[in-house]
């Protein structure tokens, strides 16, 4: 019986411990963010890596998400003659959910994994200890700039994704499925509030925090050489993605 309890309880204890350490890392990153030097150059470099270098993948994901969403909702609405609502449905779906979530997932795959792999390699080759030995705090030098960059760039990428997603929906709805373009746009204006877009962007910033915090945490806790780096990278992507989905539910229920 005790063994069974241990078997069930151990993963729970590990999860609580891990969450605690992640929160401590966040507190430490915030503390170091407020202390000079402010590492602006590294933050801008990370913003380029997180934002500019992710544009292409976000564009592709965004446009096809909008297109397929328009297609699916058209088939649904056609059953009761509500095709005119396709535009508003696509715009609401994209700005509230699909834009922020899909962008975050793509950036997790591209950037979160790279953060873990880079910091993990630095950890196992003692480069992080080398930073300590030169009186440079690794949280301030490595972790804080990545978190700030992800929080700032995810909303920007989401705006791009929202825009091309709606454009993709417009192309499928108006050009391919022959919905009246005036109605398509009018319904978007009628149903989509600025608040929908704004809340979507707040979600995106939260996802940016989650993926960068987990990416960095898994990186700086890496042990066990090349194999350890591989393991940490996989864990980072899985944990970030799952956390993004879970937090999306709570953010949505809180915001809308």
């Amino acid at each position, binding site marked *: 019986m005790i063994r069974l309890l241990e078997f069930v309880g151990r993963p729970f204890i590990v999860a609580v411990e891990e969450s605690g350490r992640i929160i401590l890392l966040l507190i430490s990153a915030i503390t170091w963010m407020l202390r000079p030097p402010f590492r602006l150059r590294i933050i801008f470099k990370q913003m380029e890596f997180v934002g500019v270098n992710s544009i292409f993948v976000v564009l592709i994901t965004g446009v096809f998400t909008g297109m397929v969403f328009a297609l699916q909702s058209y088939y649904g609405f056609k059953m009761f003659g509500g095709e005119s609502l396709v535009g508003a449905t696509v715009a609401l779906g994209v700005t509230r959910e699909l834009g922020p979530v899909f962008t975050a997932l793509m950036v997790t795959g591209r950037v979160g994994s790279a953060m873990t792999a880079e910091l993990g*390699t630095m950890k196992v080759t003692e480069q992080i200890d080398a930073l300590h030995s030169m009186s440079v705090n690794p949280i301030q030098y490595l972790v804080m700039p990545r978190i700030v960059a992800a929080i700032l760039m995810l909303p920007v990428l989401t705006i791009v994704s929202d825009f091309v997603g709606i454009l993709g929906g417009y192309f499928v709805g108006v050009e391919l499925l022959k919905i009246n373009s005036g109605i398509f746009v009018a319904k978007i204006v009628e149903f989509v509030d600025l608040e929908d877009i704004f809340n979507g962007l707040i979600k995106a910033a939260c996802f940016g925090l989650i993926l960068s915090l987990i990416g960095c945490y898994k990186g700086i806790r890496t042990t066990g050489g090349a194999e350890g780096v591989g393991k940490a990278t996989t864990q980072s992507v899985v944990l970030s993605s799952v956390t993004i989905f879970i937090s999306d539910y709570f953010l949505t229920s809180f915001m809308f």
Partner: protein
Amino acid sequence: MIELIKVCKSFKGQKVLDNLDLKIEPEKITVIIGRSGGGKSVLLKHIMGLIKPDSGQVLVNGIDISKLNDKELNEVRKIFGMLFQDAALFDSMTVGENVAFPLKEHTKLSKKEIDKVVEEKLLKVGLKNVTHKMPSELSGGMRKRVGLARAIALNPKIVLFDEPTTGLDPIMCESIDDLIINTQRHTNATFVVISHDIGSTFKIAHKVAVLYEGKIIKTGTPEEIRSSNNPVIKRFISRETEKACQT
């Protein structure tokens, strides 16, 4: 200058340092020898505050660094330089950027002045025309030289070496030994080297400390260690000398 008093450290229930006492003389080369996996690197990391002891004191210039917070530790560490086992060069930076890193972080020197210091330090470790190379383009020995140039960039008062000759061929080992001796003579800094290379130890050390089962079992000059009757030390020296002869 550096003193460890009754330092204990365990990892996952396994005792690595057990009531360890050690005094390191200033402006001398002290080599700590011991078996691989015997806690030498852990001991070195305690001296720099990279690892905190479970109990005991690590005194640097009279300050117990195990009680300091991150910010205070960063201040104390400015008098340290460290050469890591595999040099731990930043692989996203060139050799020049690696050596310039501590200068950029902790001095207000202009770019021109930094470049001059970088060149001077690289020359000191016997390297020329490597500033623009990436660490991945260098051999093991060259990487260690660059690591040493970076460690002494700020003219530290204490330089720590984690197995400086491990993984190098005998000729390169000798040149690293000479480099350590000459650099110490030039800088007059306190050098703490950990090693299991007996030949190299007796060549470079002013003082030798023997680490065994988490304790320093003897400290003394190389001659005193060589003539020790302690069976553990005798066995260790003869084994390592045998190994060196075979290579």
